[in-house]
C-alpha cells in the first residue's frame, strides 16, 4: 500500500503495518475534531515517524496515486482542517 507524506513523497507500506498507523490516525482525527493543537502535533509527529521507519521510499518516477495521504510535518491544525474541508485548496 502506498502512502504519501505531503512535502516528502510516497512510501510503500506492508499491509500489517497499517493497523498500527490506524490507531495513531484515529488520535489525529480526534485532535482535528476537537481542535487540540498539542495532541494534533503529537499524533502527527508520531505517525510521520512511524511511516518513515516502516515504509520504503517509492521511486521518484513511479506514477501511481496513494491510498493514504498524510499532512506535511510542519502543518498546523488549521491548515489540515482547510485541506480536509475544501478540496479547492489543493492547487495544481
Amino acid at each position, binding site marked *: 500500500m502506498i502512502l504519501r507524506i505531503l512535502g516528502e513523497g510516497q512510501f510503500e507500506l506492508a499491509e500489517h503495518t497499517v493497523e498500527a498507523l490506524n490507531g495513531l490516525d484515529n488520535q489525529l482525527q480526534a485532535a482535528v475534531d476537537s481542535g487540540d493543537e498539542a495532541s494534533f502535533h503529537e499524533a502527527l509527529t508520531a505517525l510521520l515517524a512511524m511511516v518513515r521507519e516502516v515504509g520504503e521510499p517509492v*521511486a521518484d518516477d513511479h506514477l501511481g496515486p496513494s491510498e493514504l495521504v498524510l499532512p506535511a510535518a510542519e502543518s498546523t491544525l488549521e491548515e489540515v482542517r482547510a485541506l*480536509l474541508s475544501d478540496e479547492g485548496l489543493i492547487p495544481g
Partner: protein
Amino acid sequence: MGVMKRMSLIFNAKANKVLDRAEDPRETLDYSYTKQLELLQKVRRGVADVATSRKRLELQATQLQQQADKFDGQARAALTQNREDLAREALTRKSALTQQIADLQTQHTSLQAEEEKLTLASQRLQAKVDAFRTQKETIKATYTAAEAQTKIGEAFSGISEEMGDVGLAIQRAQDKTQTMQARAGAIDELLASGALNDPTGSSKDDIQLELDRMASTSDVESQLAAMKGQIASPAAAAAIEAPTGAATAPAAEAAPATAPAEATQPEESA
C-alpha cells in the same frame, strides 16, 4: 474514517473530476503534460526565490554583526576612559542587536530547510513528468479512447496527486518568503535609519560622538598640562620656546672645559 484516508480521497477526487470532464481521455494527457511543465517552471522559480531571500538574510546578519562588533569596541573604549555609563549604553545596544541576529539565524535555518525541500520536490516532479511523457506517448499510440480510459487513470491520478503536493509546497514556501521579506524590509529600514549606525562608519551615533569628544577633551587637557608645566618652570619654557638660543649658550660655557682635551689630541696622534 481517519485523516489519512480522507486526504487521499480528496486528492483522488480532484484527479477524477478532470478525467471525467474529458470526452477523449487522451486529450487530457497533453493538457496535463503542459500543466506539469508549467508547474516545474514554477517550482524552479520558487527555489530561486527562497535562495534570494536566504542570501538577503545572510547579508543583513553580516551587517548587524558588524554593528554589534562596533558597539563592543565602543564599550571597551568607554571603559578605558572610565565611562562605565557609556560602556553600559553601548552594550545595551549590542545586546538588542545580538537578539536580532539570533532571530535572523533561526529564519535562515528555516529558509534553508525550505529550499532543500523544494529542490527535492522539483527533482521528484521532474522524474514523474518524464515517466508521464513516456506513458502518454505509449497510450496515445496503442489504445483507443475507450481503452485509454482505464490505462490513463493510474498515471493521471499519480501525477495529479504529485502536482497537488508540489503546489502546496510552493504556496508554503511563498508564504514563508513573503513573511521573511516583510521582516527583512523592516531590518533594512532600521539599518538605513539613524537608529542603527551604518557599518561603513560614515555617520556617527551619539556614543561615538561622546567618545570622540572625550578623546579631543583629553588631548586638550594634555596640551594644557604641558603648557602649565612650561609656565611654572621658565627655564624649561625657554628650552621649548627658544631651542636654538638655549642650546648655544651652554655650549659656549662648556667650550673652555673641552679645550684642554682637544689640545691633547694632536700630541697623542703625533
